[in-house]
């Protein structure tokens, strides 16, 4: 199965709603009119794209339409909208390719409570194991009850070692130890789990900075990637989360989860657009293999695809 169709399958529900919705809006109009734009606006807003980004996307769309259209046929809207979204998502992804060529490459995982960090780590581990990389995990969520147990259990299932110090330990110390051990034993990838924290809690954000600094002491370039895990059902608060996590822990990429429900995850669009943080992976299911590397044009096409589209 090709990447596009796999991604499309993963985004089936999203697509069924959004792509289908946009198609039917377009086909219900005989010409490009204000009502058509209003309906598109509604569709994008209900996909959590946010009002500012929605208006900006529609503005670009109008310009494109002005340049192209002479007869007012709404059919062109579909491709132009796909292009517009692609253009919003692409620059960040192209400017910042994944930085995982080091031995070890360190990935720090951050996010608010319940966004799906630990599950994402399991999926990322599986993803890298498939590429024959040696992966080590660090249980630096020492705050939430049983968080260490959870990641250790995943480690057992995947046959991967987990560096841990138990509940209440200093997370920076766990990260430091793990990196030391990853260096000494020649691991390719070290993934560091951190406690979920709401981004407006100053103390907890300071703790994150400390983890960041502790790793820098071991390796000035570490962490090579900092992934912000974002719950796909989150609304406009996602942008605020990304902004603050970017300030305090230098987020280099987004992982969006829970897109196997009916949520459309449109909140990543304002994050890419306003903060230039690229989307790296998409979580599209509960199984370990349900994680896809992100490709902007495939994403835009899959997001807006409808049934008659095929590979």
């Amino acid at each position, binding site marked *: 199965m090709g990447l596009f169709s796999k991604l499309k399958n993963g985004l089936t529900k999203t697509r069924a709603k959004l792509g289908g919705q946009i198609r039917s809006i377009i086909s219900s109009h005989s010409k490009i009119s204000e009502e058509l734009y209003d309906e598109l606006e509604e569709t994008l807003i*209900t996909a*959590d794209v946010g009002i500012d980004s929605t208006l900006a996307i529609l503005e670009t769309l109008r310009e494109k339409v002005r340049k192209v259209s002479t007869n007012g046929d709404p059919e062109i809207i579909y491709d132009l909208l796909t292009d517009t979204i692609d253009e919003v998502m692409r620059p960040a992804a192209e400017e910042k390719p994944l930085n995982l060529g080091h031995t070890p490459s360190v990935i720090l995982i951050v996010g608010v409570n319940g966004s799906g960090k630990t599950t994402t780590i399991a999926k990322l581990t599986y993803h890298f194991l498939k590429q024959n990389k040696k992966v080590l995990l660090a249980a630096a969520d020492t705050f939430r*009850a049983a968080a260490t147990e959870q990641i250790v*259990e995943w480690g057992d299932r995947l046959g991967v070692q987990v560096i841990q110090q138990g509940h209440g330990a200093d997370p920076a110390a766990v990260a430091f130890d793990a990196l030391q051990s990853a260096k000494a034993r020649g691991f390719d990838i070290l993934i560091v789990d951190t406690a979920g924290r709401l981004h407006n809690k100053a103390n907890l954000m300071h703790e994150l900075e400390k983890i960041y600094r502790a790793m820098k002491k071991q390796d000035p370039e570490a962490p090579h990637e900092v992934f912000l895990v974002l719950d796909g059902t989150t609304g406009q608060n*996602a942008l605020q989360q990304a902004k603050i996590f970017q300030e305090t822990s230098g987020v280099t990429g987004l992982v969006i989860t829970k897109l196997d429900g*009916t949520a459309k995850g449109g909140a990543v669009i304002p994050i890419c657009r306003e903060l230039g943080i690229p989307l790296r992976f998409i979580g599209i299911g509960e199984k370990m293999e349900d994680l896809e590397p992100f490709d902007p044009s495939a994403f835009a096409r899959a997001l807006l695809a409808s049934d008659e589209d095929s590979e």
Partner: protein
Amino acid sequence: MFDQLTERFESFFKKIRGHGKLSEDNIRDSMREVRRILLEADVNFKVVKDFIGRVQEKALGQEVIKSITPGQQVIKIIHDELIVLLGEGQSRLDLSGLPPIPLMIVGLQGSGKTTFCAKLALHLRRKGKFPLLAAADVYRPAAIDQLKQLGKQLDIPVWAPGQANPVQICKDALVEARKTGRDVVLMDTAGRLHIDQEMMDELVKIREAVKPPEILYVADGMGGQDAVKAALEFAAKLDFNGVVLTKMDGDSKGGAALSIRAVTGKPIRFIGNGEKPDALEEFHPDRMASRILGMGDIVTLVEKAQETVDQESAEKLAEKIARQEFTLEDFLDQFKQIKKMGSLDQILGMVPGLGKQLKGMELDEKELKHTEAIILSMTLEERRKPHLINGSRRKRIAIGSGTSVQQVNQLLKQYEQLRGMMKSMGKMKGRRGKMPKIPFPM
């Protein structure tokens, strides 16, 4: 909580309040603004549409346009409609029937069910109940461990037999509760997607097996447009009774709260607003409407104070103030009481009109800690007779508390000012014969 929503409304109201006259166009423009505010706050698109429709219809009515203060009228309409949206009247947990009463806690993954279970157990125990927690999430790795650890922290028993059938676990939990004299059983179910039929059916089976009078749906307060879809699906399958909103201590605008209530018609029962087990609030729609619109919530504040401040010591303090014997020891006491009530910005957020002024001003909890440290570094005698504290004592106190002499001076000055204020309050007592029950040092 709802801070940004509040802020937007405040600046919007400021704009329209000034208008001596509102034309139809003005009203339509202002409705566009309200729409934008609500959409940015993640209120569901359809809910916004209905809301705007209703407000606009009323606002375009003759009363508003003819009124001398049309801006105020519009604000009142928005306030009233907001209360309608949030649900009129307070809703209470239904704990009727023969104990042990089963309560089912359901929701999507990561919405905060397990944490809420622990909070609710603590809340119920404070109300004189004997809760039992039942660990029915057999899917997420270590979910059962998490509940066990929380139970241990709070000293509340957890039923976790280590078997794989959630229906059986819940049934057995009731048997266990009967045996051990527990009157409420909180069942922590696994998180699931609303479109996962098999998992949704499992919840229905649990419901049929234990027949709970109350099923609570836990929703993430940061949820977006899709929040209502999941809630509607759970409502259709399970017909839950109440909604719990979690993570409301973030800076989310909380629009999902408005939407879920509006589309399911189910009342919001609780709000989770912190990591600590006691960070749980009962939900009051009218107070919340006022808070969203920046009108403050003094009732919750007073209740919170009554809950945490012990009555006897409050009365003793009132007496002391009346006799002008308020010492630094009492000052320290007051600090501790306030700290028990929650974080400073939470408390201040409830004071009417303060929201705006506090914006951008960082509330420094550290400063409170310094104050505490300074007083703790004084001898008992010094705390009772602060006038004893001379230069060399100040130096000693500063070193002992890790602060500077200036900070010590500042605190003593504040204390003197406060005493001055209290003196006049003491005189007031003589005239009016009434003392406030809950004195605050600020």
